[in-house]
């Protein structure tokens, strides 16, 4: 019993990636993606048909009229947010050639479900594309106890692919 308690304390004190909090700021994420040469942000206005498509994916309207995004050639980068169970999850998505190159949880504020930030989960989104029905081309295996966080990330992946289609024609 003492050994178990000691092991638990050591593990609790060990320095490793935080469960809840800011894993990487959006600014650092952009700097990493663009190798420190971050382009000037552009703006995408969420109007007309795009507005309806966003509502279809999220189940509600987007909280803003326009979105900033960063573009280099055919690659776009999006910093998006969606509520998991109660709090907003901030995600960075890199899209290239209409496929997700990278999806990363940047800030996680929920009190549970933080497992979604790990590569074993987010790697499922690599190379994902958007189908005509606005769904991903693949099934994403969930994490028990993190259903709503998983759902939020799926929606943000679809949004990023949709937005990419609108700006890279």
């Amino acid at each position, binding site marked *: 019993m003492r050994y178990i308690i000691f092991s638990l304390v050591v593990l609790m004190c060990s320095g490793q990636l*935080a*469960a809840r*909090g800011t894993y990487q700021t959006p600014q650092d994420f952009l700097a990493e993606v663009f190798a420190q040469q971050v382009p000037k942000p552009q703006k995408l206005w969420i109007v007309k048909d795009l507005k309806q498509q966003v509502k279809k994916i999220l189940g509600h309207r987007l909280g803003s009229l326009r979105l900033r995004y960063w573009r280099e050639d055919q690659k776009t980068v999006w910093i998006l947010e969606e509520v998991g169970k109660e709090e907003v999850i901030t995600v960075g998505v890199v899209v290239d050639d209409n496929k997700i190159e990278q999806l990363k949880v940047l800030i996680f504020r929920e009190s549970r479900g933080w497992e979604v930030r*790990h590569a*074993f*989960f987010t790697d499922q989104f690599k190379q994902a594309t958007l189908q005509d029905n606005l769904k991903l081309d693949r099934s994403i*295996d969930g994490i*028990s*106890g993190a*259903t709503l966080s998983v759902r939020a990330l799926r929606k943000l992946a679809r949004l990023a692919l949709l937005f990419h289609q609108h700006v890279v024609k």
Partner: protein
Amino acid sequence: MFMKPSILATAIATCLVAQSASAASPTNEEMWELIKKQQQQIEALKNRLNVTDEKVEVTEQKVEATGEMLEERSGSASSSWVERTRIGGYGELKYHNWSNQKEGGSDKKDMDSHRFVLFFSHQFNDRIRFFSEFELEHGLSKDTDDGSGPGEVELEQMYVDFDLNENHTARAGVFLMPIGFLNETHEPNTFYGVDRSPVEKNIIPTTWWEGGAGAHGELMPGLNYDVSLTSGLKVPTSGSNAFLIRKGRQKVAKATAEAPAFTGALSWTGIAGLELGGAIQYQSDLTQSANDNEVSALLLEAHASWQSGPFGLKALYARWDLDSDDAKAIGRDEQMGWYIEPSYKISVGEHNLGFFARYALWDNEAGNSASTEYKQVNVGVNYWPHEDVVLKFDYQNQSSPDGKNEYDGFNLGFGYQF
């Protein structure tokens, strides 16, 4: 000398054409005036174009300013009380149509608004937050002398979380025990079947909450823990319900707290779609007695779930061991159960349809040699017209011990969460 008429006509026509041609050709002065007029028109158009360009630029600036203002407003709202307070909930309505397979036994057909639940939560600051769950069961709660009445009003959760650091959180208040699949997560759209698993209901016993303090967090990527020191169960020691685990739930309602309960749980979710978990609870006296007749009890629980594409599989085992001669005498010194549940879920447009089967076995008198276990098979379907709304149907076939009711039949259910 007379000219021929045709020649005369031609001559006259030629003169007229010559005169006409001479009249259409502008003079140099006229050309110059025309050019000057056209130049004036061009200048006027250029001026108008410049004015339009200026207007477009001003409009763009106004649109940009409006966009920035709206973004600032939506950003500042995040600090308001409203933005930091959330309301949620879930509910479920059930219809049971059961035939009692035991001779002389009564059938059970009922329609029950089983649960109406509201969640209230509030974020005090970045590190401290409050969560609560308020529940009405069975649609009606009456205050009667004999305690009869179909329903209950319950405070199922009321706790505050304190983030110790980014990996670990302390908790104080009333909270759900981190045991099994359903005890912490039981909104109707999250599980198959109209009724919750009878193993978790009768053995764990879901839904089970206690008051106290604890800590939870992540030990390493994918490995989560939860430990707590809380009030405990208080099982009756006599009568037909003696030592039955489910009858020991005090619900933190003036709960006797002679003996606390120590609970620890671990879960591993290091592979997407897979969860392996388990829990242990020790209570030095399951009867909460103030005398020396203590009944120590130990709960061991293990579960696994796997999801890959449309396929899902769940399995759970739970067992209580009670250190009591009185409990042993009636076989209730050991109470156990297990179940396995495969499922298959497909998307139909925006909707989802899931099929499941479940085999469950549980025995609240497993300590004796008599055949006292229940067995139940459920097969059914969940239909989600929206991810937070579910319609359910399942058929059950039950096998029960001698002298106990045995219900076969079907169930219909409706549920939601928000």
